[in-house]
């Protein structure tokens, strides 16, 4: 079916004519940013951003830096996969970072080991009954927490018709409180070996990539994906067409909650501890990744692939700032500018596309 023409007058289906995917622009931006840091490094720092400049000849690339970039975006990237779906429906989820914190605390308290270096676990939350449980228990508890948070968000938004911004803001504050109350502000540490294995080494990257591929396929090839885009594009039309919009939103927010829970489990496992304040502000980083990846905050447009590329850009910029020895304070300021800049760019792009017609 390279080029088929049907019917009266140029009625065609021609895959070659399909518009350039928006992800391509994001990919080009990623490459340009990497090249820019490489150039700055070569010109001013006498160092390379991308390539190995050490004496061991085994490696061409600076794998240490690349690994850090990928690793640090992976956990927030998992959240971003959920946030992307929420934003495509035209909603927003401000609670995901705090849900990560609360979920990490609760899951970790069921993942503790009884004996640490021959002594009883100094950070024990529960009695012996909650010690050395099989790894499935904390994982299920964690997923349950995320699901519960997502369900509450979904019910508030879909059935009581509270704006997503307010509903998830409430959940954000609630989850922060919950994570402090859970252990009176104490950190929860010393997980079992099984739990610690979840986020070990490059596991977060592996889980992120797996989930990204899974949801990329779901959004592109299933009814769920089609309805997600339809609702964000024109909610009234979706309703009139028979899509159960409320039920679908409940599902989308629940999935986002579960993905936040996965991030919480991976994060607490990687850090071997959970503490109140963990994950706070991750939601903004996740939203930033989606926005950089070309999502429209009005809904209807965006993709997981875009968000993954957005996450990489995000990681490259943060790592690049460290590379050019920019202060952490500047980093936050620039992060803020990137988020706003990406939204401005999106609106400019939308205006241009409507003017063309």
């Amino acid at each position: 079916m390279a080029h088929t023409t049907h019917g009266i007058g140029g009625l065609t289906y021609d895959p070659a004519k399909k518009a350039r995917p928006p992800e391509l622009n994001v990919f080009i931006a990623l490459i340009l940013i990497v090249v820019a840091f490489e150039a700055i490094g070569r010109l001013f720092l006498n160092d390379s951003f991308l390539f190995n400049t050490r004496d061991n000849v085994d490696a061409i690339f600076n794998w240490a830096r690349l690994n850090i970039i990928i690793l640090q975006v992976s956990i927030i990237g998992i959240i971003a996969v959920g946030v992307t779906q929420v934003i495509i429906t035209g909603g927003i989820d401000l609670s995901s970072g705090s849900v990560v914190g609360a979920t990490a605390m609760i899951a970790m308290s069921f993942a503790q080991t009884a004996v640490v270096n021959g002594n009883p676990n100094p950070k024990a939350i529960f009695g012996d009954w909650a010690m050395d449980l099989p790894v499935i228990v904390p994982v299920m508890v964690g997923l349950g927490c995320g699901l519960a948070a997502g369900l509450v968000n979904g019910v508030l938004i879909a059935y009581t018709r509270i704006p997503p911004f307010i509903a998830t803001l409430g959940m954000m504050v609630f989850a922060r409180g919950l994570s402090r109350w859970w252990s009176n502000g104490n950190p929860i540490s010393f997980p079992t070996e099984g739990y610690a294995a979840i986020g070990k080494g490059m596991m977060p990257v592996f889980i992120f990539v797996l989930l990204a591929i899974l949801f990329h396929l779901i959004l592109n090839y299933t009814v769920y994906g089609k309805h997600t885009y339809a609702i964000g594009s024109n909610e009234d039309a979706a309703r009139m067409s028979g899509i159960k919009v409320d039920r679908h939103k409940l599902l989308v927010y629940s999935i986002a909650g579960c993905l936040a829970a996965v991030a919480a489990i991976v994060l607490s496992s990687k850090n071997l501890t959970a503490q109140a304040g963990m994950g706070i502000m991750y939601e903004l980083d996740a939203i930033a990744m989606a926005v950089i990846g070309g999502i429209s905050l009005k809904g209807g447009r965006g993709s997981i692939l875009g968000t993954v590329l957005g996450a990489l850009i995000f990681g490259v910029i943060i790592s690049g700032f460290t590379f050019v020895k920019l202060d952490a304070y500047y980093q936050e300021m620039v992060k803020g500018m990137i988020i706003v800049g990406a939204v401005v760019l999106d609106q400019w792009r939308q205006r241009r596309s409507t003017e063309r017609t």
Partner: protein
Amino acid sequence: MSELKLHDMGDIVLETRDLTKHYGGVHALEGANFILRKGEHVAIMGDNGAGKSTFVRQITAVEQRTRGEVIFDGHAVNFAGPLEAREAGIETVFQNLALADDLDVPSNLFLGREKVLFNLGPFSILDRKAMREATMRGLEKTGVKIPNILNTIRNMSGGQRQCVAIARTAAFHSKLTIMDEPTAALGVQETAQVENIIRTLKKQGEPLILISHNMRQVFDLMDRIVVFRRGRICANLNVAETNPEDVVAYITGAKTGAEYADVA
């Protein structure tokens, strides 16, 4: 003039008996008796607020009627909502287009009733090829020209969008198409395009109800004109036996059909 003919033509697709809708004290629609036969194209005309849209909303079950009967396809029907009406085969093209701008043509045609390969609940796998091919057939039936059906609706002209909305009816073999002022927002060329689709539907024997203010359009395309005035049907005219001046007289209330004299 047409009272005698009411029962001597083909099968009846849609009939309403004493169809009535009150909004509190406002009698938006009062005792509408209406018949549509197979293959017939009927225009509904009337001033703003005459009850045209209210009439259509009762048939498509966007609202629940106060009183009366709707008989569709030989059965008395009582749709709970517009979806049930659609499922039964009544397809409505709304004035404000019910399209998702960010989706392509097949996705819009099949919105809410996607073809699937495997049924896995909400995660059912879409049968994209089947939907694409059905879209081609549907568009072919209407004779619509759309450069590339995989473009998003956003990038299409008003006429093309309207055509996509209309093509839904063709793609799903609906038993009755209702169009609520489909050309109100379109340019000359685009209007011609939509009118061509209506002609095609006529040739194919698909029944149609058209709400329109455009006298030329109605006289060009329709078989019959039903005029609403103050919530009541006040005339039922064969296009061949009437003229625009007459219709205007009915619309403004200067004249009332003989058989409706008692109610007006």
